[in-house]
């Protein structure tokens, strides 16, 4: 390694984005906040490079997906995170608990979206639509037909899956920009329909008096009980996703992301795998939506705007695509950080846009998923 080339790579990886973001945000945000934004993005890049982006991997002998065991460091990190998630809420006030419940909701969404963006390398800019479809499915079923929470749970996922076919089937041959635009359009159409179909969705006023879930022996009405309910769902989702990832179904996705022609040549039906991933991804979004509606006891189209899709996408990208722990970290960071730096909330959208653009400029392989 000669010095000039490593200096050049540091320059390219960190200094350039820093200067660039600073220059872009200066006229809009002023000096102090621009420095803040640049530092925030730099921190994000550093975290990404140091902890999340996989180093060139030297596989241990005997490695295969199906038989991978976590390293002891990895396992203790998971156990620690789980213990924190169980114990910490006992000491939190109502407001903080709300923030952490929000982390869980966004974790479900980011994990669901990661199936497409991270595992398959397909960009979806309308993912929040499935969250909305799940939420409205429960809202309508419970208030109009008196169907309970637990049956609506499955139905919310299934309805979202069914809707995902509308977008999956015609877009299977599309990639990159085209897919992004089509999914963006889909997300907007769903929101507009929710906004205008007054007889079914009550339009912009939304649907109120959605019942909370209940178990025969516990009322899930308090904040902390609800937190644990959502936590259970997140854990189940992580379990299912990590098992799928380490099976041949996960291998199909890796194969398609890596080389579509070669996948077809080893008899993988790439359209079918993509469709199944679209459906699974939507299913998790729908289930999260049902939970969300039952927590808020109210839904309106405002919760399902384009910026929410971008928000979830930013979590997937920031955290490290295709990497479950990274995605959880991304969700955690992007929910908690704005709360800690409240003055940033106004600039949230701007920062995310900058983040996304920076990633695309400097980590183009990241977005198209060239990682193992």
């Amino acid at each position: 390694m000669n010095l000039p080339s490593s200096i050049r790579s540091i320059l390219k990886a960190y200094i350039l984005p820093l200067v660039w973001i600073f220059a872009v945000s200066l006229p809009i945000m002023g000096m102090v906040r621009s420095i803040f934004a640049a530092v925030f993005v730099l921190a994000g890049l550093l975290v990404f490079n140091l902890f999340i982006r996989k180093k060139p991997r030297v596989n241990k002998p005997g490695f295969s997906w199906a038989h991978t065991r976590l390293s002891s460091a990895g396992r203790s990190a998971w156990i620690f995170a789980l213990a924190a998630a169980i114990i910490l809420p006992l000491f939190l006030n109502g407001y903080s608990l709300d923030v952490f419940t929000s982390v869980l909701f966004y974790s479900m969404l980011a994990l669901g979206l990661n199936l497409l963006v991270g595992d398959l390398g397909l960009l979806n800019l309308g993912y929040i639509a499935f969250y909305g479809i799940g939420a409205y499915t429960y809202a309508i079923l419970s208030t109009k037909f008196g169907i309970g929470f637990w049956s609506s749970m499955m139905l919310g996922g299934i309805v979202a899956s069914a809707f995902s076919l509308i977008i999956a089937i015609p877009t299977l041959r599309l990639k990159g920009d085209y897919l992004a635009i089509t999914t963006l359009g889909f997300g907007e159409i769903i929101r507009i329909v929710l906004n205008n179909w007054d007889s079914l969705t009550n339009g912009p006023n939304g649907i109120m008096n959605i019942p909370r879930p209940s178990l025969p022996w516990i009322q899930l009405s308090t904040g902390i009980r609800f937190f644990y309910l959502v936590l259970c769902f997140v854990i189940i989702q992580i379990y299912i996703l990590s098992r799928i990832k380490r099976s041949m179904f996960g291998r199909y996705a890796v194969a398609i992301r890596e080389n579509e022609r070669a996948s077809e040549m080893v008899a993988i039906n790439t359209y079918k795998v993509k469709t199944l991933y679209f459906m699974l991804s939507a299913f998790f979004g729908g289930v999260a939506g049902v939970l969300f509606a039952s927590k808020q006891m109210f839904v309106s189209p405002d919760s399902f705007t384009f910026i929410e899709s971008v928000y979830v996408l930013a979590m997937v990208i920031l955290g490290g695509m295709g990497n479950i722990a990274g995605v959880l970290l991304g969700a955690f960071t992007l929910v908690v950080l704005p709360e800690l730096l409240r003055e940033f909330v106004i600039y949230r959208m701007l920062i995310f846009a900058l983040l996304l653009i920076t990633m695309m400029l400097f980590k183009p392989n990241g977005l198209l998923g060239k990682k193992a």
Partner: protein
Amino acid sequence: MENSAILSIDNVGVMFGGLKALDGVTIDIKKGEVLCIIGPNGAGKTTLFNCITGFLKPSSGSILYDGSVELTGRRPYEIASQGIYRSFQNLALFANISAVENVLIGGSKRAEFSYGITDAIFRTKKFLTMESALRQEAIGMLEFVGIAGKKDNKAGELSYGERKLLELARGLITKPKLLLLDEPAAGLNPTEKTELVLAIKKIREQKINVVLIEHDMRFVSDIANWIVVLDYGKKLAEGLPDDIKKNKAVIEAYLGTR
């Protein structure tokens, strides 16, 4: 040697704009023979492979597999599931994952290794036995082509020759009946070439039909039973290796006016 054809390419034509990349090409590939397609650059050899494997739909003609299955108009994965595997001239590997994982993916679609999504989620016994059997076989394939020592290296990190061999191993684990190799020897050093010749001879003994595109005449006459010469999208000649070497038209196409 049996006489029935594994592949009957009948009057296949492909147009790219005004260019006739293939022009009424008819080839019968008999079971058990190693057929070699030669011809100058741009003759249409790769285009012919693309037609057979469904990456291109010919504008005319038909391709009949195993006497009964029409291949034109099908998607590549359907053709692959019929037992046809093809290597690519410029390689098509899963570059960011290990060599053995590349081969594992190749075998995943075989019926004896297939399990359901619930088997995967609950790690049933079926899942575990099939996964380890598949892995065993994948390592076996890497041993067969002679790169087992590199099984845990990323495919993208292997040398050019090793990558070609890896692509072959990934194909062999699919248990193909017909193997199409697009310039397998190009870019190999002499030792690797000798190994490849040995591997192809062993493959032939397993009753796998081999069709290859190649330039190196010495390599070709070593393994091919039958040679087809393409030039400007047309079949210029076909015959035994020794006859083709003496064929005037062929010598002209290669050494003549260009």
